[in-house]
């Protein structure tokens, strides 16, 4: 929010020039121009009559989707597996993130805080698909590799968010319990934990929504679920089947999004 206006100060005749903003705007414009120049992609190719025709033909092959009962059952099973991968991955990440958030919030000293943050940053900075490619080597092809990959990346994300909400939570309830002679664990479990639980679950649900999308994709490197089916059918040019799988993906994403939005609304009425 604009501070000057919010504080009710009389607006100046002209807003003061913000040199940093101008520099930033020029910098961003230059970066965008450089990016397009560096990539030097010929987008005219995309709108040329020939490639338009090819694209239209390619897209046209997706219709009508394959709705034979056998294939729909296969797609539904794939969707269920994708959901399982995302859900288990998120739960594991909640546990791992929670465990790492405690040191990352500075509860065990400065050294532990820095070490935990480094681990979290590393887990977070490696994309899920890369983790999945690694885990496929470790655990073999299949949904388990995808679950581990999601768990590792999401641990990094949730751990950081959890650490921040732990740091932002008011310390006085825990201090009160500690001063009254309660143990560290009890004080944490009954004073600070209830303050951050709702937010923590909301974060996890939000990540679950993203993980559903990601789990659908992880199959591309052989980690099971809808993605693996989609990659398979696209690579043998069975677009009708691919269309069914895309619809299944859409339905799954929509269902999980609505459910999670509903639960999150219940959890955090003040922020909904």
């Amino acid at each position, binding site marked *: *929010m*604009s501070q000057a*206006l919010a504080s009710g100060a009389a607006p100046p005749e002209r807003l003061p020039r913000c040199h*940093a*903003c101008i520099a*930033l705007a020029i910098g961003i414009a230059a970066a*965008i121009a450089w*990016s*397009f120049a*560096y*990539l030097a*992609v*010929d*987008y005219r*190719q*995309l709108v040329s009559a020939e*490639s338009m025709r090819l*694209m239209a033909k*390619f897209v046209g092959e997706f219709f009508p989707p394959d709705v034979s009962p056998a294939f729909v059952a296969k797609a539904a099973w794939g969707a269920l*597996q994708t*959901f*399982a991968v995302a*859900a*288990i991955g998120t*739960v594991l990440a909640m546990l791992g993130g929670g465990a790492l958030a405690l040191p990352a919030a500075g509860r065990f000293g400065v050294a532990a805080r820095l070490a935990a943050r480094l681990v979290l*940053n*590393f887990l977070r*900075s*490696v*994309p899920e*698909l*890369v983790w999945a*490619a690694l885990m496929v*080597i*470790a*655990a*073999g092809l299949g*949904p*388990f590799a995808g*679950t581990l990959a999601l768990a590792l990346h999401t641990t990094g994300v949730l751990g950081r968010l959890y650490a921040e909400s732990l740091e932002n939570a008011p310390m006085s309830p825990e201090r009160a*319990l500690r001063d*009254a*002679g*309660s*143990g560290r*664990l*009890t004080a944490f479990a*009954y004073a600070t934990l209830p303050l951050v639980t709702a937010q923590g679950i909301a974060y996890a649900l939000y990540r679950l929504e993203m993980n559903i*999308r*990601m789990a659908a*994709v992880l199959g*591309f*490197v052989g980690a*099971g679920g809808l993605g693996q089916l*989609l*990659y398979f059918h*696209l690579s043998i040019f069975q677009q009708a089947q691919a269309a069914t799988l895309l619809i299944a993906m*859409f339905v799954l*994403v*929509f269902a999980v999004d609505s459910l999670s939005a509903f639960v999150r609304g219940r959890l955090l009425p003040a922020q909904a």
Partner: protein
Amino acid sequence: MSAPAAALERGATLPDPAARGRLTALVVAIAVLWPLLALAEFKPWQLFDGGNAEVMANFLAGFWPPATSAEFLALLAKATLETIAIATAGIALAFVVAVPLAVLATRSLSVSRIGPAPQRALGAGARTATRAVLTVLRAIPEVVWALVFVRALGLGPGAGVLALAVTYGGMLGKVYTEILESGDTRSARALLEAGSPRIAALFYALVPNTAQELASYTVYRWECAVRASVVMGFVGAGGLGQLMDQSMKMLNGGEASTILLTFLALVVVADAMSVVIRKVLA
């Protein structure tokens, strides 16, 4: 766990006030997760299974030392620049896609909504249709779009840029709409009621209140785009991902670890840049 000291002094054992709720939650969670574990083929012991463990151990042992040959580093620098360029160009196009859609979908900019106007149903219909377009754009993951555009444009960064433009266009559009509607919309309404055009109401009433939030979300999405453009390399859309895919397929651990370190550096730099940009805008 020690019971509260005061209770101990009185010699009483207080019941745990949160026990029942937490126990119920735990039981429900286990009941729901159990079948999912089976479905996800959750078998941690596979990790330590002779064959797999050996392959992974060999591969991981190859991670050290990271590859530092001049030839590979040159390749890596080129791929890194390409990744950043894909993310930046993709976000720029996504912004162009998102802004008009967001303006169309924002309820607080609707003129027909103020009074009983003949086009009222038309306006509401247009907003719903725009929202549906935004949903379709972002429902399909960027990697799938990339796979489709690779068919059209051939292997290379172009497919990645377009995939980002489509998916992130949908995401930015939806979130811009939400941000514009969640702020204080009374000033926009006042302007519209006084007969101002919608674009003026947008720039003089809604944007000043929400500029920082809009900018910081866009920067956050750019950060995500950097990560996503890594991922899209796996389907042949150029950049670091393509390099990583090649190194992984050849089980070249040294190269893979150099690339992983580059990811880490890239994310840290992107983080730092978003902090700087947000500070300037504050």
